[in-house]
């Protein structure tokens, strides 16, 4: 029996409207790499935040080295030896690497309390060298690549003598070569006795690193396996969990003429050679890992940013929007990836949010007509069955799913041909997911062309007519949904063969 360094039992965490963690359990052995997997919204991030003291659990118990603990602040967890490395690095870009490593516990000389730069740099350099990092501790943090910044974060955790290291999708933004380096460092850490919780979407991470794998789904604990005892197929089934056909009543929609054609679209540093076309009533799924460039392609089509090569045709006419306003006028609407940041005005009521994109419709010569606005917004909200007492209810008080419906209502208020949905069910509970799928199906039936960006395989397979898979800014597969399998998609999204590599680095 190996020693369990960290153990969580029956942990539950509820946020307004969502049960983020429902009675989950987890244990971490001394010196193992334990991968935590699950789809978006499975509760992984909340789980980490509970471990690192950002959130206190509503129920349940946490044992560190056999002792029950409760962390009220991240600082407390840190002091107890639990360090986390987040996807978005929380560093001080203007300071040096050494300072980033020792911030808060700087090395000072005994008498004068002067910062002992020589010692700090020496110790920092030792840490970096022990991680085989070939950069200087005097480098400015903001000038390092994401991969190197992550190494600094690891060094920081080491300097605090962390016993438990949580790594939240560390490879998401890394190139293949950088990932290799990270794997090596992570393994070295394990061999030196650090216990690591590794969160990831990528299969290759699991096969390469994990000793054990735990899967969460919809805020619940599913199971834990020894990594060598489980197959990719079983793992995917555990993550997805449900028979796809039940959640997604497949409709027979007759697709019409081509409305959108994208030819060899490219934007330097983000994506390249993107081509696809979209017909009326068709749902085209754009999938791939987070950071594959899907959102950037959508933003380009919606006029948020521009592209520097390739062409787009909307109903045969050249299309190049300079802003979302022009995109909407041309007939392309988008549901942004982050609805709170880009979709909604949280302080406002439902009605005003819905009419925001179509103020021209509810006004005459610039004067807003209140009664007309009310009916208009009310009608759309009802059509999408937003669940709220009144259209004067503040959006901030709604659940994720209902907020999403409000954003959909908002873009539907415009006269559109193409609708781009970027992760429409992110952070939405299962019930509301079904409702949103229903809506998406309805929209296709009404003849809209739909681009669905999603990382969730069941969504992609269940809803779409065709699938485009992206990886590192390029299209790696283009297939009809009928007959496509998860493995096929996942392989195109994650696995990289040598030939592909050579092409990618060119």
């Amino acid at each position: 029996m190996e020693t369990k360094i960290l153990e969580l039992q029956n942990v539950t965490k509820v946020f307004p409207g969502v049960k983020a963690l429902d009675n989950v359990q987890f244990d971490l052995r001394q010196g193992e790499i334990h991968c935590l997997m699950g789809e978006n919204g499975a509760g992984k991030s909340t789980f980490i935040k509970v471990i690192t003291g950002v959130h206190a659990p509503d129920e349940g118990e946490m044992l560190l080295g056999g002792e029950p603990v409760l962390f009220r602040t991240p600082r407390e967890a840190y002091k107890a030896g639990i360090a986390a490395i987040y996807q978005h690095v929380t560093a001080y870009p203007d300071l040096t690497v050494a300072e980033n490593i020792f911030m808060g516990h700087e090395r000072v000389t005994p008498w004068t309390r002067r910062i002992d730069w020589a010692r700090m740099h020496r110790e920092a350099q030792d840490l970096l060298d022990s991680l085989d990092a070939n950069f200087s501790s005097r480098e400015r943090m903001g000038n390092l690549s994401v991969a190197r910044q992550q190494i600094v974060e690891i060094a920081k955790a080491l300097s605090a003598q962390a016993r438990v290291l949580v790594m939240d999708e560390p490879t998401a933004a890394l190139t293949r070569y950088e990932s290799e380096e990270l794997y090596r460092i992570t393994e070295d850490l394990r061999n030196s006795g650090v216990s690591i919780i590794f969160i990831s979407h990528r299969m290759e991470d699991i096969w390469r690193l994990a000793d054990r794998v735990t899967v969460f789904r919809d805020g619940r604990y599913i199971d834990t396996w020894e990594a060598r005892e489980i197959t990719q197929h079983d793992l995917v089934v555990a993550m997805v969990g449900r028979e796809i056909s039940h959640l997604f009543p497949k409709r027979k929609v007759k697709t019409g003429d081509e409305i959108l054609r994208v030819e060899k679209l490219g934007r330097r540093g983000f994506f390249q050679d993107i081509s696809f076309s979209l017909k009326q009533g068709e749902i085209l799924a754009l999938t791939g890992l987070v950071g594959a460039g899907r959102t950037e392609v959508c933003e380009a089509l919606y006029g948020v940013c521009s592209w520097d090569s390739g062409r787009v045709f909307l109903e045969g006419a050249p299309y190049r929007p300079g802003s979302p306003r022009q995109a909407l006028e041309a007939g392309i609407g988008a549901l942004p990836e982050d609805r709170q940041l880009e979709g909604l005005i949280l302080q406002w009521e439902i009605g005003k949010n819905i009419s925001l994109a179509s103020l021209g419709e509810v006004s005459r010569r610039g004067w807003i007509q209140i009664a007309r606005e009310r009916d208009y917004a009310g009608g759309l909200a009802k059509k999408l069955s937003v669940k709220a007492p009144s259209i004067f209810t503040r959006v901030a008080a709604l659940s994720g799913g209902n907020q999403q419906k409000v954003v959909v209502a908002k873009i539907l208020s415009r006269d559109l041909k193409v609708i781009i949905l970027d992760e429409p069910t992110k952070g939405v509970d299962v019930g509301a997911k079904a409702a949103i799928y229903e809506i998406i199906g309805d929209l296709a039936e009404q003849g809209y062309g739909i681009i669905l960006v999603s990382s969730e395989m069941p969504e992609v397979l269940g809803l779409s007519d065709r699938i485009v898979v992206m990886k590192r800014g390029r299209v790696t597969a283009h297939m009809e949904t009928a007959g496509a399998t998860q493995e096929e998609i996942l392989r195109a999204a994650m696995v990289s063969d040598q030939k592909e590599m050579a092409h990618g680095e060119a």
Partner: protein
Amino acid sequence: MAKHNWQWNENLRELGLLLFMAILVVAIQIRNPAFLTAGNLTSLLTNTAILAILALGMMLVLVTRGIDLSIGSTIALAGMVTSLAVARYPGIPPVAAIGLGTAVGALAGMVVGLLVSRWDVLPIIATLGMMNVLRGLTYVISGGRWVSSYQMSDSFKRIATGRILGVNNLIVIALLAYLVAAWFINHTRLGRQIYAVGSNPEAAEVSGLPKRRLIFLVYTIMGSLAGLAGVLWVAKFASAQGDTATGYELQVIAACILGGVSINGGVGRLTGLFLGTVMLGIIANALPLINVSPFWQMGIQGGVVLAAVLTNVMVRRNTERTALRRRVI
């Protein structure tokens, strides 16, 4: 790749400023040979000393993503309080006078610090309000009258006119302030943490740095320096008036921005700050020498600041664009 190319970038920026200054100096010298004389250079430095002291404090404020518009008024208030005290009790030793002014400034700074750090008032709003409050108080305590040269003791005036080892006291004090600042910024935990807070406030909060206390400290330092500057100011000009140093905060901020201190926080070096301050000093000193009306000074300063800010933005955009071009996806 150069080993620490970021430092090179900063050095390059400062080198550019230095080059520009050199050209300026040569141009001025050609127009008026009286510019590069020992006498004029001494007066240039003496006149720039107060600006240099204030710029130190303002740099810290800007590093934490704040701004302090109230320091012109703090200078006036501290100067007025001190000179009233000196006029009433001529026996006060100069050191006590300096202490008094600095304390008044520190108090004003603490009020601003409290508003910004504890009650989250926008720095621009809080200091705009304090600017008027302090200016009003200056008029109120003086009853609208001036304190003139004859009311001040010689020992008090000597604070600004005296010399130590042949160097004017103001320059000595400014140098001392720079040394202390260099120590504080580069060699103490507090100093580094101030930069950390400005560089990434959220991270600072999450990792448990005393963010609010650091911000409070920064405004208190700014106030104290403004108080000190107030004493030096009235001693130098041998008069304290209600409208002393009106709008001087703008010059101080201008010096910081010219010196490469980022208004977005986290960035600011003493060498750059020094160059920025001297640059403004040269402009102020040289305009009369080359027969430019003093009324041009304000416009020129504003123009230089805007140009510096816009150049910074363009340079940054350019580097980002080339970085993207090199990025492999």
